[in-house]
């Protein structure tokens, strides 16, 4: 196991950064958090992630790791003897966790974001319908993966919990913006209860941003067109 200092380039508001921070918390790794200023990209970020120029970037013993899901897997593997396993132990369960984490990013998140960027009521309604359909898939995935246990990963939060759960702050912000419930206790009861458990996990609680603070930030990021 490589020892060495750990730095994380990121922002308090970023879902993807939160994933890395939850993973570091799970492994009890101390790290220096390098908060990026909104609207600019630091020299270190550009140097550490020249390909995508995006956060998060984990810098471990001066070596950068990019892309949130890849960082989470790296943390699990580099500190494999620390704390609980983040990926499931069985190859098939790992494949399923990776499949759904990719679904969260490639399909579910894209639909969620399109609610914020929708122009007009028709577009917004269509985006909401898409999110509801995809959330329904995730409800079924939760039932299959959790097997009666509290988290996708079983008894403890893991890779897929982190992949989806990190969105919970923004999930609430989009609900407020759309004036429409997107995590419905009656439609997706398992996910609804899971969300509360996830947010209360000690590795997550200190990191989940306050909804009002995040909503204010969202207004900067997704300004509404002037009437």
């Amino acid at each position, binding site marked *: 196991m*490589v020892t060495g200092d750990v730095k994380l380039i990121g922002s308090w508001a970023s879902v993807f950064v939160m994933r890395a921070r939850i993973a570091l918390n799970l492994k009890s790794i101390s790290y220096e958090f390098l908060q990026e200023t909104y609207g600019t990209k630091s020299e270190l970020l550009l140097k550490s992630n020249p390909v995508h120029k995006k956060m998060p970037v984990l810098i471990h013993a001066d070596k950068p790791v990019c892309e949130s899901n890849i960082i989470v897997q*790296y943390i699990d593997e580099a500190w494999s003897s620390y704390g609980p396993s983040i990926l499931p132990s069985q*190859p098939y369960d790992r494949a399923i966790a990776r*499949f759904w984490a990719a679904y969260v990013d490639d399909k579910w998140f894209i639909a969620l974001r399109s609610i914020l960027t929708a122009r007009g009521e028709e577009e917004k309604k269509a985006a909401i319908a898409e999110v509801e359909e995809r959330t329904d898939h995730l409800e079924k995935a939760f039932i299959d993966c959790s097997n009666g246990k509290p988290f996708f990963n079983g008894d403890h939060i893991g890779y897929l919990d982190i992949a989806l759960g990190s969105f919970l702050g923004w999930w609430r912000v989009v609900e407020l913006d759309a004036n429409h419930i997107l995590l419905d206790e009656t439609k997706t009861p398992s996910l609804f209860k899971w969300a509360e458990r996830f947010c209360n996990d000690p590795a997550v609680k200190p990191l989940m941003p306050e909804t009002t603070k995040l909503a204010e930030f969202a207004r900067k990021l997704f300004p509404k067109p002037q009437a």
Partner: protein
Amino acid sequence: MAGELVLLDFWPSMFGMRTKMALAEKGVSYEYIETDPWTKTPLLIEMNPIHKKIPVLIHKGKPICESLIQLEYIDEVWSDTYPILPSDPYQKAQARFWADFIDKKLYDPAWKIWGTKGEDQVAAKKELIEHFKTLETELGDKTYYGGEVFGFLDIALMGYYSWFKAMEKFGEFSFETEFPKLTEWTKRCLERESVVKALADSDKIIEYAYALRKKFGAE
């Protein structure tokens, strides 16, 4: 072992070719079922209800979808033979990063090169060349992307190899002229039986690309 491992795949798919390469590297036998993703067969819908796409690897009746996920699965299940992923966590992260880059950056402009015409096609060509250049820089003077060992990232990119000739033809450029180091790397990969057997004939791919162009109105 019969029936234990099944691959639903479509002969021109660059993603299916990756999975075939990995299975061959591991010396694992499987049943191959040709599955046209344009006509969704009941088995495909049952095994990949979310995306309804190939390739789907079915192991003891349980489906694994998405080619890069299949590669990791194959490496983990048949861990006692030829390793596909590096064992060092940092090297693994790098391999995953670049495989992710390939799928995020190459696929769309590659499609547009044969699927569109005019300005769209020109823009796609420029983007594709830029990304291949980045990949060539990443290869550097290494024998393979995995260093001395052919592995995950080599497989991820060689999956696209059958389509290179089609890209050259529709994009009107020469892979060898633009990317000499990548070209040498492809020749080294083509020395491997697992790679050669997995790939489709490049001329048949060009025929297929023409058919797609007609279908999508670019001809």
